[in-house]
């Protein structure tokens, strides 16, 4: 190992020196800027072996035979494992997060290109890859199901013949809202606008791929697993169920993670293979997938084919929204969503508008593609919901000849209507949507932009202005309704104040770059008056952190952030009693000023939280019923989700000669209630907007008719570079969540949710002279060019 000669010890620069909320530079940075982070592939253990996975070249085929003899004869190979071997231990299949099953290693047949067929464990990663080439698999090709629109055709081949009695590719049906009431509104409305809206399959593609190091100790029967997981506690419980190991003998450690974006929520076959490999060989086994494997086999995002309808009066009152959705779930239903929500939170497709009725009917199907669906900052399908309604509202504005911003201002849910119950059963907590959109219009100079557009249009230039306003639903969730495979979606928090007044807070959530080590110290600092620099934040190790469901769905601040504030208040309550003894007054006679208790009316008589901490651990009597130490722990069950919102305005120029789209300006105003660290929020927004830019303009995972994945490497799966990405303009309004202990809402996924419709609306607006009213992502030059010629085809 390298000698550590540069320890990150310098004081965290904290330009406003907040004792709590405010701009504060990150505590994580000192190690990352020196290359001293510790990611999964950095873990090296004595005797560690390397695992590589053989993947199917075909989308749909029966496995006739697998010959592993040549691979086993390789001098550096320790083991070769096939599905048949796993089947002997009952491990060939594993449960998914949606109560389906997924093949760990294929036994009967392969169901998507890139599926796991066998694995090799060797002395190093080069030898493991060499040995993959020595495995001989004989396949009998089957016709694949690629286009979801034909998955339920009577003659479609059955993908999931492993399921008892399964004779079609139907995955599930789901509905929300009131079909009859919605039909009644539509049948009498002045204006009805319909549009086919495709949200193509994309991939979160975190910079670090998925991987793990499994270390099974046969003497103690104990498994330690370092892995790229956003939900270490949930994974531990699922491994206990899958592998039959007792839960207290499993330790999952999620070290630094190089981005997750929802890709690292599910359990992948590679993790299970590495665990089995370690048990079989008695050595630690590392598995790190490469980028192509990540793109073709791990959790994709979106893939919703939607038919949307919106009903309104002639003068612009929006009355109802209705949609029919065909959801492509791939070969196994691996959707990471609360069990009672197979379509996630798509039910919020009514958006920010006060509607009379709404209805959604959804059919999900199996196809010969990788599993997934919920990922890439989707907040459980809200990306799709917001894209649908924001396309429909802009389309309606065009139809009515109204300005799209004004139409939104006229139809928003008003501040006095909160808490607001939507026609599909969601209860929004708070919002001032007009204020948020007006702030975006002010920053953008909206009226002047429209005037500029008119001038340019006269000159034949293609300038477009797109508006998107959205309501998110984040912070899953109330355990009465929300669980992942039976685990309620609450989160724990432990807080210990040391004798000298420094503290450690332990979280059940797991950062992947969102800055939890900084912001959770700020939350506790705000409540206790201990400087955030003096508070260490521990996360990701199931032996050392309280149970909880992990980080996704922008749930850390709503759930775990609430737990952190409340656990600090619990400590403060105890501190008050100890302080009352120290100052010899009744607890009620004490006033809290950040960091100390003082006697009411006598500011000279005070004790600091640090002095109280020493007393709590030190000599001398404590008040009756008070035990020593200054610790507390809590599990927080949220009463509702939080509903942040935003208003985005995008300005694009389309080159009339090449059809290249350039985003010239993008204004994003977000309202996530109380802002814990504005610098970190802004960085989250920049990143999310760039995701949205990528999805809107260049990213797609497509397939040819044989089921070959097109876009299975960074040569074809295009991610925005610094060159395509514009300077983002951000703003904010503050409408606190009334039910959250510090009024904070989640925000991490808002920009990814809200930005694609703003960009698409802008491009369609730019193409008005060509009569284009609808266009599907990604808006590549060729697709935009086709639209200008009047014949754009759906992307999938």
């Amino acid at each position, binding site marked *: *190992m*390298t000698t550590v000669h*540069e320890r990150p010890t310098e004081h965290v*620069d904290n330009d406003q020196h907040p004792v709590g909320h405010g701009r504060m*530079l*990150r505590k994580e*940075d*000192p*190690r*990352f*800027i*020196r*290359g*001293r*982070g510790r*990611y999964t*592939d*950095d873990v090296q253990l004595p005797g560690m072996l390397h695992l590589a996975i053989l993947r199917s070249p075909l989308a749909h085929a029966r496995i006739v035979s697998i010959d592993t003899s040549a691979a086993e004869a390789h001098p550096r190979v320790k083991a070769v494992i096939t599905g048949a071997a796993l089947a002997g231990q009952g491990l060939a299949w594993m449960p998914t997060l949606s109560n389906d099953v997924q093949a760990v290693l294929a036994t009967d047949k392969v169901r998507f290109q890139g599926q796991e067929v066998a694995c090799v464990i060797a002395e*190093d*990663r*080069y030898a493991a890859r060499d040995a993959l080439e020595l495995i001989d698999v004989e396949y009998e090709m089957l016709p694949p199901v690629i286009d979801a629109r034909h998955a339920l055709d009577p003659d479609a081949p059955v993908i999931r013949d492993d399921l008892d009695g399964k004779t079609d590719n139907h995955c599930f049906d789901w509905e929300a809202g009131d079909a009859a009431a919605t039909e009644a509104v539509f049948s009498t409305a002045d204006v009805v606008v319909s549009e086919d809206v495709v949200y193509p399959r994309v991939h979160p*593609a*975190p*910079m*670090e*791929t998925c991987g793990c190091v499994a270390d099974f100790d046969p003497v103690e029967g104990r498994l330690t697993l370092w892995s790229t997981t956003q939900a270490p506690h949930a994974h531990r419980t699922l491994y206990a169920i899958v592998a039959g190991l007792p839960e207290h003998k499993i330790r999952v450690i999620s070290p*630094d*993670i*190089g*981005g997750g*974006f929802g890709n690292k929520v599910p359990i992948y076959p590679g993790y299970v293979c590495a665990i089995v490999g370690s048990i079989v060989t008695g050595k630690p086994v590392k598995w790190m997938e*490469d*980028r*192509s494997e990540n793109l073709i086999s791990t959790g994709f995002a979106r893939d919703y084919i939607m038919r949307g309808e919106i009903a309104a009066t002639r003068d612009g009152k929006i009355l109802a929204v209705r949609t029919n959705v065909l959801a492509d779930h791939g070969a196994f239903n691996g959707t990471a969503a609360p069990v009672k929500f197979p379509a996630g939170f798509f039910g919020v497709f009514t958006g920010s508008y006060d509607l009379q009725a709404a209805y959604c009917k959804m059919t999900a199907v199996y196809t010969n593609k990788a599993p997934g669906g919920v990922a890439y900052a989707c907040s459980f399908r809200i990306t799709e919901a917001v894209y649908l309604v924001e396309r429909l509202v802009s389309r309606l504005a065009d139809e009515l000849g109204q300005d799209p911003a004004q139409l939104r201002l006229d139809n928003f849910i008003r501040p006095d209507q909160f808490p607001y119950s939507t026609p599909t059963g969601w209860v929004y907590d708070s919002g001032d949507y007009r204020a948020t959109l007006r702030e975006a219009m002010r920053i953008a100079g909206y009226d002047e932009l429209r005037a500029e557009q008119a001038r340019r249009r006269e000159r034949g230039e293609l300038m477009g202005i797109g508006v998107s306003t959205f309501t998110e639903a984040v912070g899953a969730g109330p355990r009465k309704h929300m669980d992942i495979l039976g685990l309620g979606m609450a989160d724990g928090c432990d807080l210990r104040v040391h004798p000298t007044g420094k503290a450690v807070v332990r979280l059940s959530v797991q950062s*992947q*770059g*969102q*800055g939890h080590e900084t912001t959770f110290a700020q939350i506790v600092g705000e409540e206790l008056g201990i400087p955030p620099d003096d508070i260490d934040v521990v996360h990701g190790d199931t032996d050392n952190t309280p149970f909880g469901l992990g980080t996704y769905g922008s749930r850390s601040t709503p759930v775990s952030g609430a737990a952190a504030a409340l656990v600090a208040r619990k400590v403060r309550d105890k501190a008050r009693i100890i302080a009352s003894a120290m100052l010899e007054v009744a607890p009620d006679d004490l006033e809290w000023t950040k960091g100390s208790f003082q006697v009411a009316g006598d500011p000279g008589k005070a004790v600091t939280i640090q002095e109280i901490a020493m007393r709590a651990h030190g000599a001398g009597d404590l008040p009756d019923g008070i035990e020593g130490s200054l610790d507390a722990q809590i599990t927080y069950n949220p009463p509702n989700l939080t509903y942040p919102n935003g208003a985005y305005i995008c300005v694009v120029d389309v080159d009339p000669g090449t059809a290249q789209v350039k985003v010239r300006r993008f204004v994003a105003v977000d309202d996530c209630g109380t802002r814990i660290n504005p*610098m*970190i929020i*802004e*960085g*989250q*927004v*920049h*990143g*999310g*907007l*760039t*995701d949205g830019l990528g999805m809107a303009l260049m990213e797609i995972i497509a397939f040819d008719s044989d089921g070959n994945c097109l876009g299975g*490497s*960074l*040569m074809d799966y295009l*991610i925005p*570079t*610094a*060159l395509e*990405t514009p*300077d*983002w303009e951000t703003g904010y309004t503050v409408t606190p969540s009334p039910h959250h202990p510090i009024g904070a809402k989640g925000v991490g996924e808002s920009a990814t949710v809200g930005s694609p419709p703003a960009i698409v609306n802008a491009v369609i607006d730019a193409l008005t002279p060509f009569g284009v009213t609808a266009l599907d992502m990604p808006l590549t030059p060729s697709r935009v060019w086709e639209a200008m010629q009047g014949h754009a085809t759906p992307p999938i």
Partner: protein
Amino acid sequence: MTRISVSVDGTEAVDEVEPRTLLVQYLREQRGRTGTPVGCDTSNCGACTVLVDGRAVKSCALLAVQADGAEVTTIQGLANGELHPLQKAFHEHHALQCGYCTPGMIMAAVDLLDEVADPSEQQVREGLEGNLCRCTGYQNIVTAVRDAAAELRGATS
């Protein structure tokens, strides 16, 4: 196996490597320089960028034997007691989140500022086009690089 002699972050060593061993794996696994990560398999992402004889290269696209006799600098060799101005600027401008692209991004920026002392925003964006980031949306990276450029110019003038 082939014998190579490489200076990594100022430390000379003679090592046996397979001719096919990529420089990035040599640095990570034989020299313990895990600060340089791998982000793709098609030379697109630039996470593995290091300096070889002062020039930024993607170490996943170079064989270790090709670095024989070279001086390699990774992110772990950049701080010379004190942080490099780029490291400081990345921290101060919140130019990193998950930190995975950060080592390669900083090393590519070192080379960029070596070539262009006072880059425009556009020049920074072009200069870092070979480095992908999924978290930051680049804006704070551009600000950090230009801020570090100003500090470096101040230090040398």
